C-alpha cells in the first residue's frame, strides 16, 4: 500500500516539477537572455511570450526524417537530451529538498549534464548530413577540452564539504558562508562560468553549431517537433547549469527554515537572485564576445582554464580561512 503511495507521489513529482515547471522556467530564462541581448544592442527585443510561441510553432510543424538518416536514432536523440536534463534538474535540490537525493548525486548530475551534448552528437551523426558531421566532430573536441577543468572545479566544493551529496555541500555553505567568497571557490566559479558557456554552446564557444560556418551543426536536419525538443532541452539546460553553479558555489538553492514566512520569502528571493546572477553573467559573456576559432577555444580550455582549475583545487587544501 505504502509502495503505491510512493510511486504515485514520485510520478506526480516528475510530471509536475519535471515536465511543467522546469521547461517553463527554462524558457523564461532564454527570454531573459534574448531580451538582455536586445537591450545591449539598443533595441526593444522579443516580447515575453516569444520562447513559448517558438516552441508551440515548432511542435505544430511537419516532421521530416531525411532519407540518409538512421531513423530510430535520429528520432530518439532529442528525447534523450530532454529526458536527461530534466532528470538532472529533478535530482538537484531546488528549494533545499528533493525526494531523489542520494549519496553521489553530484557525480550523477555531472554526468547527466554532459548528456545533451552527447545526444546532439548522436542525433547529428545519425542524420547523415556532412555539416552535422563537422559539427559533431567539433562538439566532441570541445567536450574533451572542457570536461577536465569542469570536474576539477566541481571537486573544490566536494573536497571542502567532504561529501558527494548536494545537501551536504549546501549545509556546509550554510555554516561557513558561500564558497564563492573564498579564493579557491572564486577561481572555481570563474572556471565553471566559462565551462557553462561551452556546455550551453553559447558564444564565444558556439563552435559546434556556428550558424555562419556550418549552418547549425548537429541540428541541421532537425525540423519541427524534434527541433522543439532540442530547444526545450537547451532551455532546461540553462536552468540546470544555473542551479548547479548556485548549489555548488553560491551557497545553494535552499529555504533554510520552513516555519517562518519571512525566512521562506527572503530565501525564495535569494534563490531567484542566485539563478539570475548566473544567467546574466552568461548573457553578458554571450553578447559581448564573438565566436572563437576552434583551436583558440581548445587552447584556452587546455591552457588557461585548466590551469586556473588546478590552482583552485590546490588552494582548496590550504587550511586557512578564506582560501
Amino acid at each position, binding site marked *: 500500500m505504502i509502495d503505491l503511495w510512493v510511486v504515485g507521489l514520485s510520478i506526480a513529482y516528475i510530471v509536475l516539477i519535471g515536465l511543467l515547471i522546469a521547461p517553463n522556467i527554462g524558457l523564461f530564462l532564454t527570454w531573459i537572455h*534574448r531580451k538582455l541581448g*536586445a537591450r545591449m*544592442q*539598443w*533595441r*526593444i*527585443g*522579443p*516580447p515575453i*511570450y*516569444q520562447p*513559448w*510561441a*517558438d516552441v*508551440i*510553432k515548432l511542435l*505544430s*510543424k*511537419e*516532421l*521530416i526524417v531525411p532519407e540518409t538518416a538512421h531513423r530510430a536514432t535520429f528520432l530518439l536523440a532529442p528525447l534523450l537530451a530532454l529526458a536527461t536534463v530534466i532528470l538532472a534538474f529533478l535530482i538537484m535540490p531546488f528549494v533545499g529538498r528533493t525526494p531523489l537525493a542520494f549519496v553521489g548525486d553530484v557525480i550523477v548530475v555531472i554526468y547527466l549534464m554532459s548528456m545533451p551534448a552527447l545526444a546532439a552528437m548522436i542525433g547529428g551523426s545519425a542524420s547523415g548530413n556532412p555539416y552535422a558531421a563537422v559539427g559533431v566532430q567539433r562538439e566532441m573536441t570541445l567536450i574533451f577540452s572542457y570536461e577536465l577543468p569542469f570536474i576539477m572545479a566541481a571537486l573544490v566544493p566536494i573536497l571542502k564539504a567532504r561529501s558527494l551529496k548536494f545537501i551536504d555541500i549546501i549545509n556546509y555553505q550554510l555554516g561557513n558562508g558561500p564558497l564563492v567568497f573564498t579564493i579557491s571557490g572564486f577561481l572555481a566559479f570563474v572556471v565553471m562560468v566559462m565551462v557553462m558557456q561551452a556546455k550551453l554552446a553559447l558564444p564565444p564557444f558556439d563552435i559546434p553549431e556556428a*550558424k*555562419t560556418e556550418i*549552418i*547549425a551543426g548537429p*541540428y*541541421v*536536419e*532537425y*525540423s*519541427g517537433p524534434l*527541433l522543439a525538443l532540442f530547444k526545450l532541452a537547451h532551455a532546461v539546460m540553462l536552468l540546470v547549469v544555473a542551479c548547479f553553479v548556485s548549489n555548488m558555489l553560491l551557497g545553494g538553492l535552499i529555504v533554510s527554515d520552513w516555519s517562518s514566512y519571512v525566512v521562506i520569502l527572503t530565501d525564495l528571493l535569494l534563490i531567484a537572485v542566485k539563478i539570475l546572477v548566473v544567467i546574466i553573467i552568461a548573457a553578458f559573456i554571450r553578447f559581448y564576445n564573438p565566436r572563437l576559432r576552434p583551436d583558440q577555444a581548445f587552447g584556452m580550455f587546455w591552457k588557461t582554464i585548466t590551469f586556473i582549475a588546478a590552482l583552485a583545487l590546490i588552494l582548496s587544501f590550504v587550511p586557512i580561512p578564506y582560501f
Partner: protein
Amino acid sequence: MSGLITWARIKSPWLFHFNSGSCNNCDIELLDALTPRFDVERFGILLEGSPRHADVLVVTGIVNRQTLPRLKRIYDQMPNPKIVVALGTCATSGGIFSEGYNIAGPVDKVIPVDVYIPGCPPRPQAIIDGIVKALAKIQALRGGKR
C-alpha cells in the same frame, strides 16, 4: 487549439534567405532589415541557417538555370506549413534580367509564391511590411494547408 497554433505561427516566423541569382542589392537590403536598427526580433523574426528550421523562404533575384534545381530542392526541404516571399523586382517579375538567355524564373514560375515585395531593391520598411502581409495571410488561412 488551432487558434493557439495560428497565434504561435504568426508570432514566430523564422526566415531562410535564398539568393537565386540576384545582383546582391536585394540581399544587402534584407540583411539591413535584420539589423538592430529595425529590430525585427520584436515580431519574433529570426534568420535561420538551415531550411529545415525555417517557416518563410525569402527568395531574391531572378531564377536562372543554375539555381533552378537548388531552389526547388530547398523549397522541398522546408517543413510544412511554409510561405514563400519573392523579394525585389527581379524575383517578382524578372526586372531588368527578364530578357536574359539563361532565365528560368521569375520565382512564381518555379514554386508557389505567397507575397511579392517589389522594388529595386525594396527598402527595409517595405520588406518588413511584406513579411507582415505574409503573416496576415497565415491568419486568414487559419492553419489551413500549405
